[in-house]
């Protein structure tokens, strides 16, 4: 896991270049709704991975239950819309707040658990939510949909209802969310909060002895992450116009976004984005090639990638790239220097 690398900001440069490409390519994308859809999913997972990274990569709080926040965001905004005609834009924010409350209730007592045990408690959290929604038809007068889920009625093109026929609108929104999330993550990382989180991640007790209020900062990163993740959940609900517990509140979904962040590189801001844009299109290629069985093959590939990354590339691809690039640069510079030196003498 990285330190903070203030002196070599390769990450933000990569991200900036990447985002510019994305903007430039949009006119082409608009023509092909399918590629647009894939890109939207990649952006969404990148967004979720960046949000997850704020609490795991920065502070070391390894959560395998982030799908809980995705689900909470999705369900809260959907129910507010279906039952009370609240526009999903506001519903998104409320979903975020609800997630923060849930994050505090569940996360806070579990902060004292070490690494794996904290991870397992997050698994319990998401399992409980999944069981509760699947098994409950009604909460008072509100229909929760149980296992079948809830459908959002199609309304064509409507900003107020957060629905669009032309997918490029979704594209712009999620792109904006990703840019915002990344900017937030980056500014956090470079600020006092970022330094404190890094200290907590590496040695909680040493951080404590230096005046860091460990609980407060863990909570801060945890809640920010929950809030952002939940908003992504609301977006997802509006994209699919359907929420159901089997996918949204599932452990596999949690693990998927963890894998994406790991592959790209935990602890860096750009890493998760790289991971998303490597894996999601891969999944889509599989879908076109394999048809029906692609879901299983994709899952097996994800599982294998997880194992391989842990065993061989725990810092993620971005770290590897960075090291290769800096090594190459150093090699080039020293080769240049030695040949220049020879000429001089």
């Amino acid at each position: 896991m990285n330190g903070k690398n203030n002196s070599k900001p390769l990450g933000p440069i990569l991200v900036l270049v990447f985002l510019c490409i994305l903007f430039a390519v949009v006119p082409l994308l608009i023509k092909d709704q399918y590629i647009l859809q894939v890109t939207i999913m990649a952006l969404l997972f990148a967004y979720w991975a960046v949000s997850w990274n704020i609490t795991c990569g920065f502070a070391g709080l390894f959560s395998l239950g982030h799908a809980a926040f995705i689900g909470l965001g999705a369900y809260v905004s959907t129910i507010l819309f279906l039952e009370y005609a609240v526009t999903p834009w506001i519903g998104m924010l409320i979903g975020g707040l609800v997630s923060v409350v849930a994050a505090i209730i569940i996360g806070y007592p579990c902060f004292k658990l070490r690494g794996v045990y904290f991870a397992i408690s997050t698994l319990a959290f998401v399992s409980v939510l999944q069981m509760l929604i699947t098994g409950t038809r009604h909460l008072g007068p509100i229909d929760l949909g149980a296992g079948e889920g809830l459908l959002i009625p199609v309304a064509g093109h409507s900003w107020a209802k957060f629905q669009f026929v032309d997918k490029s609108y979704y594209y712009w929104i999620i792109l904006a969310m990703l840019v915002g999330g990344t900017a937030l993550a980056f500014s956090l990382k470079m600020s006092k909060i970022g330094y404190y989180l890094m200290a907590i991640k590496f040695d909680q007790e040493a951080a404590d002895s230096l005046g860091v209020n460990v609980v407060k900062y863990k909570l801060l990163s945890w809640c920010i992450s929950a809030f952002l993740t939940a908003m992504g959940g609301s977006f997802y609900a509006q994209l699919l116009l359907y929420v159901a517990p089997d996918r949204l509140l599932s452990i596999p979904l949690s693990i998927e976004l963890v894998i994406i962040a790991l592959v790209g590189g935990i602890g860096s801001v750009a890493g998760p984005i790289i991971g998303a844009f490597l894996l999601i299109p891969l999944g889509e290629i599989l879908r076109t090639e394999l048809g029906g069985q692609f879901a299983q093959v994709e899952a097996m590939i994800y599982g294998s990638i997880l194992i391989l990354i842990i065993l061989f590339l725990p810092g993620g691809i971005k770290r590897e790239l960075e090291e290769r690039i800096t090594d190459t640069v150093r090699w080039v510079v020293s080769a240049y220097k030695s040949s220049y030196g020879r000429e001089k003498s």
Partner: protein
Amino acid sequence: MVGILQGAVSGLIIGGIYGAVAAGLAIIYGVMRIINFAHGELVMIGMFVTFWFWKSFGIDPYLAIIPSGFTLFFIGYIIQKGIINFALNKTTEREPLSVLLITAGLSMILINGGILLWTDYPKMIQTSYVLKSVSIGIIRIPLARLISFCLSMALVSALYFVLSRTEIGREMRATSQDREAAKLMGINQPRTYCLAFGIGAAIAGMSGALLAPIFFIKPSVGHVFIMKSFVIVVLGGMGSVPGALIGGLVVGLIESLGSQFVNPVYAQVSVFILFILFLLIRPSGILGRERI
């Protein structure tokens, strides 16, 4: 009143079987401090081995315990030797997160591989005794469940015997108490680890054989067992084999009795809440000891 008694007995019966599943997880954790996320899938493979023996040769599922156990021992040994030992060498954490993730990856591979090979449609084993019930006083117990329960008890007892009376067991207990000291005493750590994982997997496989007559069999069934096993192991005391049994009985009891009074979902949820409470407040579990 009868309902409650019936519910309690049913709960204990199924709980005892879950306890056997969890005992496998407990020993893997106990010796190596590894949390085997793929444990449910190991059970599932055991179920499928049993199913295959039954379908192809007409062999009674209870006899398939043996081949199931051997197969899973072999699989477990290989997994530890080939992958996990390698990961353990690279980490300094006492309870490595990396291994949890590796076993999570394995779990994904096994579930989906299974679905590709056998589809996710549930299969059932039909035996002559599946429909029979036994009456003890006013309580009725399905015969297959009763047999599975008794064999589960035997399985856990056998495991406990291996741990406490054999050389291998002693080595595993020593390693679980103090890794470094055990190494210094000449215990071959990698081999002990492989044996522990192999045995834990074998227990899972054999429990699978015991579950095959009474449960539906499909590749995704492992998910049920893994979460329950986590809960049971924490309730019983992380890494304790007798604790796993106790934990299993408690979980079975709560779920069964709870379902009598409230929506079964809430009974299950309360089990999870208990799980988190124990993690936070009493990680040494009901028995209060962190030893296998």
